[in-house]
């Protein structure tokens, strides 16, 4: 192999290995866009959670725990709420997936979606609880629940897009 090819190959590898991190960061930005759709704003899906979960399941090597922490930090800083609860929510989701990684090895899409249902519930519940504690009031769990349902509904669409992207990369 010539030297030049080696460089391009290495650049390619680096680009591919950081793409899950950057795609998830882009999702955080995307969730910030004002879509001007009536009554959607309170229940905008937790896109970062979908990204973190997807790559923790399919490519845990490309979604290390520090990346999860950074994504959570950027998300909490940009949304303008308390910094911390969102990070811990994402870390919980990541830890749950890593803890049960053997379960995901042979799981079908439907099973993974079901697992996402449980993991997202845990992550959002932790975020809600910690935000409530930090603000010293009991926040209404209603909007969080709707956000949870919308996030569940969004999971297949995003997962499909991610899988397509991954296949495109691997060609």
């Amino acid at each position: 192999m010539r030297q030049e090819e080696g460089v391009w190959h290495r650049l390619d590898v680096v680009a591919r290995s950081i793409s899950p991190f950057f795609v998830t960061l882009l999702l955080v930005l995307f969730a910030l866009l004002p879509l001007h759709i009536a009554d959607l704003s309170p229940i905008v899906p937790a896109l970062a959670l979908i990204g973190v979960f997807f790559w923790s399941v399919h490519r845990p090597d490309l979604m290390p725990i520090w990346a999860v922490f950074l994504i959570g930090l950027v998300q909490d800083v940009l949304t303008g709420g308390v910094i911390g609860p969102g990070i811990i929510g994402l870390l919980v989701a990541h830890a749950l997936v890593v803890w049960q990684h053997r379960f995901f090895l042979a799981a079908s899409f439907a099973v993974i979606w079901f697992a996402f249902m449980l993991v997202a519930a845990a992550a959002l519940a932790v975020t809600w609880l910690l935000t409530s504690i930090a603000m010293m009031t009991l926040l209404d769990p209603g909007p969080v629940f709707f956000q949870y349902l919308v996030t569940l509904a969004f999971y297949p669409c995003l997962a499909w897009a991610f899988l397509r992207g991954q296949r495109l990369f691997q060609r």
Partner: protein
Amino acid sequence: MNKPTGSEIRVASPLKAWASRFALLLLVGAAFGLMLIGRTNSFIVEETRTAVTDMVTPILDAVSQPVETFSGVIDQAEALANLRSENLALKEQNTRLLEWQAVARRLEAENAALRSLNRMVPDPAMSYVTARVVGDPGGAFVRTVLINAGERNGVEKGQAAITADGLAGRIAEVGKRSARVLLLTDINSRVPVVVGDARDRGVLAGDNTNAPELLYLGPTAKVQVGDRVTTSGHGGVFPPGLPIGVVAGVGEKGIRVKPFVDWAHMEVLRIVDYEMTGILDFEAQVGAARAAAAAGNAQ
């Protein structure tokens, strides 16, 4: 890159497992640390936040324009369908407004005459900065928006953000070229208001729902559904008389106010520069008051 096979993601050695557990604990601890810092030293958090927001705002600014165009197309299609009925309603409204205009002109003249008779201190001048809404985090925990104007455009902390319909919120954080507007409905929002023709004083407190609650009304206040709520100007942050909304419900859930602002179509905000010392100088004012009190005691 090769996709790792099942045998590659095998159970890690105990040392590796221990290290990953340690990393998790460390990072969760760090997140808790950030939560504590946010509560005790909000200055550092705010600086960081505005710096990051400043970096991201140009991107959001660029991307949000096509999104806005798209939602504009949908709105136009809707408007086209309602053109006839809307035209009739507008004509009717126009005749009514012309009558009101005559009333307002007369009152304005009368007001000016009475003010000069009483030598009333004139209200500070108002100037406006108009900015586009480029970010709306949404979610269950906050009600804020990001705008594409900041310090260099003359936006300052505490200023009122209004739409054509009424008050939307106030500036909570200011960066160089971006600012965060805390909406009326956010759980941290408190706005001094007056209610109805009796001008009863109260505080409009957000709670992350679409209808903020009226608090601290006097015992004699009689509030009815349909009463107008406007800013009172107490605290010197907002100019008095900005329209906010109408009382929508008086019941077990407290007195609820429906804001005039159309949250779904809030694309542009006007930031009101009301040249008066507000919460910005609050600490200085408290300091001066304390000094005065101490001087009074000493005498």
